[in-house]
């Protein structure tokens, strides 16, 4: 998991809302950039039950861990650029929480790398979510899901990197 990526990488961990479309526009296409995949994760309202999520994070480690995940993605797929933006603090229903953008020559690498980054980010990047109910009351910390562990572990075997 050590090492630097050999392509342009943008990592931002910030409190302010971001605009996924502006981030996508920032990516200038290289001659061989044939495929760009973006994933935007948004705060769901759970049928009106929630007003927001509150995200705690571990400053310093988050950035280091995201850089490691991106470097690992770069070893598995021929990437041309990666952007990861993750918010912390209070995130209202409907607002974006996380954005992952991957660029490659071909679609398979871009799709796989984006899915890989999201799966590993969910289980490895030090963020913790707490629910804020519709009436503003802080609620429970969200528990990690077995589904997310399963999604992350499908990338464990080196042969899964195809």
């Amino acid at each position, binding site marked *: 998991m050590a090492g630097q990526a050999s392509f342009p990488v943008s990592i931002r961990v910030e409190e302010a809302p971001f605009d996924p479309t502006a981030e996508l526009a920032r990516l200038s296409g290289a001659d061989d950039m044939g495929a760009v995949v973006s994933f935007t994760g948004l705060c769901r309202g759970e049928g009106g039950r929630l007003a927001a999520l509150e995200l705690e994070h*571990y400053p310093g*480690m988050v950035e280091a861990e995201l850089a490691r995940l991106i470097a690992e993605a770069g070893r598995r797929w021929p990437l041309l650029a990666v952007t990861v933006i993750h918010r912390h603090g209070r995130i209202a229903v409907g607002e974006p*929480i996380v954005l992952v953008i991957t660029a490659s020559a071909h679609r398979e690498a871009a799709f796989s790398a984006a899915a890989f980054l999201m799966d590993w980010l*969910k289980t*490895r*990047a030090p963020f*913790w979510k*707490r629910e804020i109910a519709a009436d503003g009351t802080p609620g429970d*910390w969200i528990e*990690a899901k077995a589904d997310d562990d399963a999604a992350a572990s499908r990338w464990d075997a080196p042969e899964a990197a195809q």
Partner: protein
Amino acid sequence: MKVRYFAWLRERVGRAEEEIALPPHIETVGDLVGWLKSRGPEFEGAFENAAVVRAALDHTHASLDTRLGQAQEVAFFPPMTGG
């Protein structure tokens, strides 16, 4: 050594971080957890279920048998729920 706590672990131990002088014979993350649990009921409670406690040494994920070595900062937290 700086010890940091996050999310419900932070709430249960009642602090976000502290400086501790490592007692002798504390060599691994697991040793440190054992020693922390001896410090009082809030630590005993926070660390009672080892399966849901994660650790990092100097911003890198670690396991219970990782040696503390020269690490400056150790952190304890629940399984992550970002994204």
